[in-house]
Every structure is written in structure tokens, then in C-alpha cells.
């Protein structure tokens, strides 16, 4: 309850203070959403690929978005954007399969941020290990749109952590990785990795988590936000 009130007041404050029209609309639309039960909340599952793990030093390479609405992942509305970066993708190319030549189709980060905020308006964000993705987005918004903001998202990793702790009281190494989480729900193994397939993998995991825990549907979405 306490957390839920904190988030609500944060959203109100950001809506009032925001100088950016897109962000203002985004925060305004968030306020009524956070009181909904999970199943009725339109979610936007997101995944970012980055050049590294430090939001102060590393850059966003791509963004994958996939809406999850009324219990269905709508593939027709899947979206994917490559982002222009400074320098080369270097080492991380091996992980994400993003080559320098792909980046020729890339858009500037500022443009991508406008697009992202518009896509997210009216939906609640969701990601696996959401704090990392959110910190990169907050950093980018701070730099390119000159706004200090705090974003919230449903985190499938956090849901899984709570579930495992409830069950066995401790977490083993690697148990919370996306692939391992999916295995526990008998979800298929995906070989390819990019921002969109990982968003799909996360969205499917969320569906499975929501189906497995009937209690989770009784709580408001704000209880799940991080």
C-alpha cells in the first residue's frame, strides 16, 4: 500500500512538473492504470540491447517493444528500432548480433525516445530485470530531452525472485536468468537473441507467471511495479 502511494504521488508530481509534452501525456495516462488488476492492464514489454551495463558510459543499440493486452501478445504490433551510436558496437556485437552495417538503418536516440514515449503512453512497461533497462532510458531522457524522470515497470525477474523465495527461501546463481526462468515454465528455448525476441521471451514468461499464480491477479499493478 505504502509503495503504491509513493508511486502514485511520483507520477502526479512528474505529470505536473514535466516540460516535455510527450512525457507529460505519458505520466498523465499512467495514473489511472496503476490501480488496475494485472490482467486488465495493457502492458508494453520492452527489451534494450546496450553496448555494456553502465548507463553512464554505455549506449542503447536497439529497442524492442511488444504489447501484451488482455492476456494476448499481439505480434502485429511488435516494434523494433536500431539506434545510432557513437563509435562501433565493438565487443557486444557478438552478443546481440547487431553489426555495424545494421546500424545504417538506425535512427538517432532522440528520435527513438519520442517514438518510445508515444508507444508507451497508455500502457504499463514490463521487462526482465527492468531496473537496468529503465536506468538506461532515464539516463537517455535526461541527456536528450533534458528531463529528470523516474520510470516504473513490471519486472518478470522480480516476480520470479519473490516466487522462488516463497518456495525455497534462497536463490541459486543463475536461477533468475531469462532462459532459466522460461525453462521452469516449460517454455521453448529460443536460439536467436535481439531486443525483439528477448521482449517476446519476456512477454511469454510474464504470461506463464500470471497463469501460475492465481493470487497475483488479485493485486493491483502498482504492487508489482519497480
Amino acid at each position, binding site marked *: 500500500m505504502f509503495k503504491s502511494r509513493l508511486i502514485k504521488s511520483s507520477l502526479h508530481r512528474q505529470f505536473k512538473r514535466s516540460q516535455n509534452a510527450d512525457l507529460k501525456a505519458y505520466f498523465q495516462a499512467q495514473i489511472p492504470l496503476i490501480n488496475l488488476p494485472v490482467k486488465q492492464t495493457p502492458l508494453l514489454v520492452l527489451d534494450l540491447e546496450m553496448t555494456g551495463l553502465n548507463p553512464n558510459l554505455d549506449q542503447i543499440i536497439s529497442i524492442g517493444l511488444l504489447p501484451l493486452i488482455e492476456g494476448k501478445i499481439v*505480434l502485429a504490433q511488435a516494434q523494433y528500432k536500431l539506434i545510432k551510436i557513437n563509435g562501433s558496437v565493438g565487443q557486444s556485437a557478438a552478443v546481440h548480433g547487431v553489426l555495424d552495417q545494421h546500424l545504417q538503418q538506425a535512427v538517432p536516440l532522440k528520435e527513438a525516445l519520442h517514438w518510445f514515449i508515444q508507444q508507451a503512453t497508455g500502457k504499463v512497461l514490463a521487462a526482465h530485470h527492468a531496473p537496468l533497462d529503465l536506468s538506461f532510458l532515464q539516463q537517455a531522457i535526461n541527456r536528450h530531452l533534458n528531463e529528470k524522470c523516474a520510470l516504473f515497470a513490471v519486472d518478470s525477474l522480480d516476480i520470479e525472485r519473490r516466487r522462488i523465495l516463497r518456495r525455497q527461501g534462497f536463490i541459486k546463481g543463475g536461477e533468475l536468468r531469462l532462459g532459466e526462468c522460461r525453462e521452469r515454465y516449460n517454455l*521453448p528455448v529460443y536460439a536467436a537473441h*535481439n531486443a525483439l525476441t528477448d521482449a*517476446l521471451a519476456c512477454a511469454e514468461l510474464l*504470461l506463464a507467471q500470471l497463469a501460475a499464480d492465481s493470487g497475483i491477479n488479485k493485486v493491483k499493478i502498482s504492487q508489482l511495479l519497480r
Partner: protein
Amino acid sequence: MDVSELQPVRDFVSSLPPFDILSDQSLRLCCISLSVVYYSRNEQFVEVDANERQLYIVRSGAFEVLTEQGQLIDRISDGQYFGFSGMLSGEKVVNKVRILEDALVYLLPVKIFDQLRAASRQFDRFFNQAFAQRLRHQGAIKSKNINTSRISSVVSADLISIGSSTTIQQAAELMSEKRVSSLLIIDNNKLNGIITDRDLRSRVLAKGLDGQTLVKQVMTTDPLTSPKNALIFEAMLQMSENSIHHLPIIEDGRPTGMLTSTDIMRSQSSQPLLLIGQIGRQNSQEELIAVSRQIPQLLQNLISSDAQAQEIGRILTSVTDALTRRLITISQNELGEAPMQFCWLAFGSQARQDQVAGADQDNALLLEFEPDPGAQLYFQALSQAVCTGLNACGYSYCPGDIMATNQKWQLSLKQWENEFSKWVNTPQPAALLNATIFFDIRCIFGSYSLFESLQNKVLNKTKDNDIFLAAMTDNALQQSPPLGFFRDFVLERDGSEVKGIDLKHKGTALINDITRIYALAAGIKEVNTHKRLVLLKKSKFINHQDAHNLIDACEFIARKRLSNQGYQYSHSQQLSNYLQPQNLSALARHQLKDAFKAVHEAQAGIKLKFLRQF
């Protein structure tokens, strides 16, 4: 968005028949139109929205489709579908879908499904309820390949080769040891030449070279070669145009074997007409036994030529018939003329002309009168010679002793009539077991008019004989075909899962039983199941659609049975009718399931017609 970004979805969908035949454009449309849902076992049943019809594609997990009354229709897992029957018929869905395991499912909206069906006839045919069309279409594609045997079916599997730096003496030793007339000369996996018997004669002995001469000095370099998938006909042409007798076989750039003109001759002599001609020319039992050794190869050639199963059955049976006739003639040459008119009768698979590998003997004698002791001796000697001969040719004795050597089955016309009357009038279980064998009857040798009078009498007894036909029907319903497949198991109608299926007893035999009942009811003389069905269709005794479905199902199951035996033969396994689902492609599973469904429906048909039961 580029669809390739959702690679996992596309990869999965494009691996499933019939989505695997869609154009890139249709596949893309399909993939971006999907939505993904998850069903937990806690929910028990899938809630089907009657207003929003869609195809359910199972990505992972398991379901059970049940009728409104809870009877099992199908069990479904990864890569299978449900929900399409309602989409095709437009009728309200009444079937229930139970969730067996947590499942991830792709949903395809009816609008897109219809667009895909409109864009591809093959796609449409797959889902269309007129599944018989699907089986038939498959047949049409296949039978185009008839009579186009390929090299791969005749060339021997082992590669006999030697390096070019060995001596010709070593080469000659290897040739004698392996009993071959030629060697491939291979260095570092590369074909450098060949050496033949003739080379050893004309290039070594005739030139006075000694055994220490190196192979590379006398071999034929850069020989003509042929790809493994070439037609036998093409290889024959290549050999005769170049006056050569040896062709190295190349597969993916590597030598894999040698095709010789002897291989080709041997394969051609297994052609049925040649074989039957050969049988007619033999003058002793021993010679016939030698000729009969070609029969397994003939069967394999027929299987690999993709001939229709019912044609293969007829060809193989005509060889059996020819052997039987020749054995009779040869022993009559010794025994002299028969003391009276007689017929050599065949029952069961030989009568129906659907023999496959390892058929038993089922035969008997029909005599003009009851034999006196002298006649009895004659027929005993004749049948003894013929049945022993058939046994030696690979047709083992009938375990139930339904054979011409058994005095119980050396009967006069009158006695046979009495036997048949007993079976027809008192349809006891044992009598019905006989009926399935004895009512498929054909004259192989002897007086055809004698045979015809028996057949007319029998059909007069069975035609429109309600009690007999009801008993036959009851007997034919003792076995039922499976429902389909679930993962690597065969799914029976009672929901149990078994490891394999007997394609004879749970497939072709059921169709034979159903068809026999109709044929006896209609008084049709034909005994071949395919021909019986064609006649029944023509005389409108069975409706057009049902006859078609049964013909297709019969052909499909019989072909699967044959190709399964072809697989067993090529893997040196014991030949059997037992099929294990893990060797089946997804498409073959769908087709077999359709065929089983046709058999099940035909069983329901005779139940209604002859037992007046639903």
C-alpha cells in the same frame, strides 16, 4: 517491422505442414497476424470465444479435444492444431478442449486463415474436411514417379576401393577376396580412376607386366561417373554409348560405389513380367526355388519405384499365382492327368491379391466329385508337391493348416457347398473366423466353370442374408483403428497410448473386413478389395464419398505398410507390420490419422446398415 526479427515464431511456424508450403509473403502475413497466449493446467478447459473464431497452433504443451459428452476425439501437442473444424464449417463449436499440460499457443484469426486458404490450394486442402482429397492428391504426385527406378536402388552399398600407389597384385587380391570385377581407385577421398578385370588382362598380362606394377600405371584415369540419383535407364544409356560396363557413383562430389552392367541386368530381371516369364520356363522345383529368390528384390524395387500399393499387391500375387501354376504343371508332368476336373483354390491375401512380404499359404482343392481312394492318392501327391514347393519358395505353411494337403480341404463341389452353408447358417465365432478367410476365394488353376458354380452358390446364400451379415459385422467391429498420434505414441480410441501400431490388423484388415461384408451383401464376385470398392461404388451400394474415402484410406495405409517394410528391409530388420510413430513425418501423421478416421466412419457405416445400431 521486419518479420525476421521474430525469428523464433517464424522458424516454428514455417516448420509445420501445411505452413511449410506457404510463400514467403503468406508466411509473413501469417506470422505478424498471430497472437500468443498461455494456458495453465489450473484453468482446466480452454474458453473458446464463439464470436472470435481462430486456429490454435500449439507451440508447447498438451491438450485433449472432447465431444460435448466427453468422448475423446484427439490428443494434441507441440506443432498440432485445433479449432479449425468450426472455422471451416462456420458452425458453432461444441467440442471441449481440456488443458493437459501448461501450454504456449499461437492464435491465428479466422480472417487471415481464410486468406491463406485462398492464396494456397494446398494449404486449404490440408485443413479442408474433405480429407480424402488430400490423400488422393498426395497419390497423384507420387504415382508420377512410377517406373523410374533410380541407380541408388540397385547399386551395392559397400565401397570397394584401393589407393593408386598400391601394386596391381594387391588390387587383384582385393578383387578376388571381395568377388568384384572392378575397383575404385581413391586417394584422399578423391576418385582418381578405376581398374577392371579387363584392364588386368589387356594392360597387364598381355603387355607382360609383373604384379609389382603400380595401379596408377594401368588404371583408367578420369572415368565417366554418374550421380547417385540418376535413373537406371540413364546409366544404361551411358554405358552402352561408351561401351563400358562400370560406372563409379558420385554423391556430393565423393565416390560412394560402383554400378556395373551386371547390377543393372540383375535389377531388370526382377521386373515382374520378366520374372513371370522366367517362372513359366522352369522345368523343375529346384529351378523354381532359385528363381523365387528374386521375389524380395522385386518387392523392394516396386516399393522404391513408388508404385501404388494395390498395384504392388497385384503384381506380387501374380508372381505367386505363376509359381503355383508352374508347380502344378511340373508335378502333373510326373503324375499324369487328373482323374477328374478340379480347381486349385486360394484364400485370404492371395485371393484378394494383396500379398506383401512373408505371405503364408492359404489354399485348398475343389473337386468335381468326392474322390475314390485312387483319386485321393493322386490329389494327395499333387498337393503335397505343390505346397512343399511353395514353402521352399518362401511361402510358409499355413499355421491353421488351411492347405490343399489337408484332406479336410480336398472337397467336392457338394461338400464345399455344405461347408459354406454351415458357416452362413450358424454364424458361430469360429465359423466367422473361417468366413474372413474362406469368403475371399479365387481359382488359381483348373476348371473355371467348376469354381464359378461354387461361387454362385455361396453368393446366393450370403446375399441379403441379414442374420449372417449382422454376425459378420459384429465380428468386424471387434477391432477399431487408432485415433491418431500423440507425441511419439499411437493414441487409441480409449485414450491409452501405445508404442506402435499394427498396420495390418488395425488398418488394412479392417478395411478388407468392411468391404467383404458389403460385397457378400451385394453378391459381388470380385475379391480384390480395391476392385470390390469400385464395383460397390458403381452399383451405388455404398455412397460415392464413402467408397472414395475407403479406397484412399486403404491405399494410404497399405502404402505406409509397404514403405515401412522397405525401411525395415534396407535396415536389415525383421519385416513386420508394426509401425513406430517416431519414424513418421508430421504430414504422414496427419494423413494416417485421416485414413484411420475414414476406417472408423466406415465401421460406423456397417454398424448402422447391418446391425441397425448407432
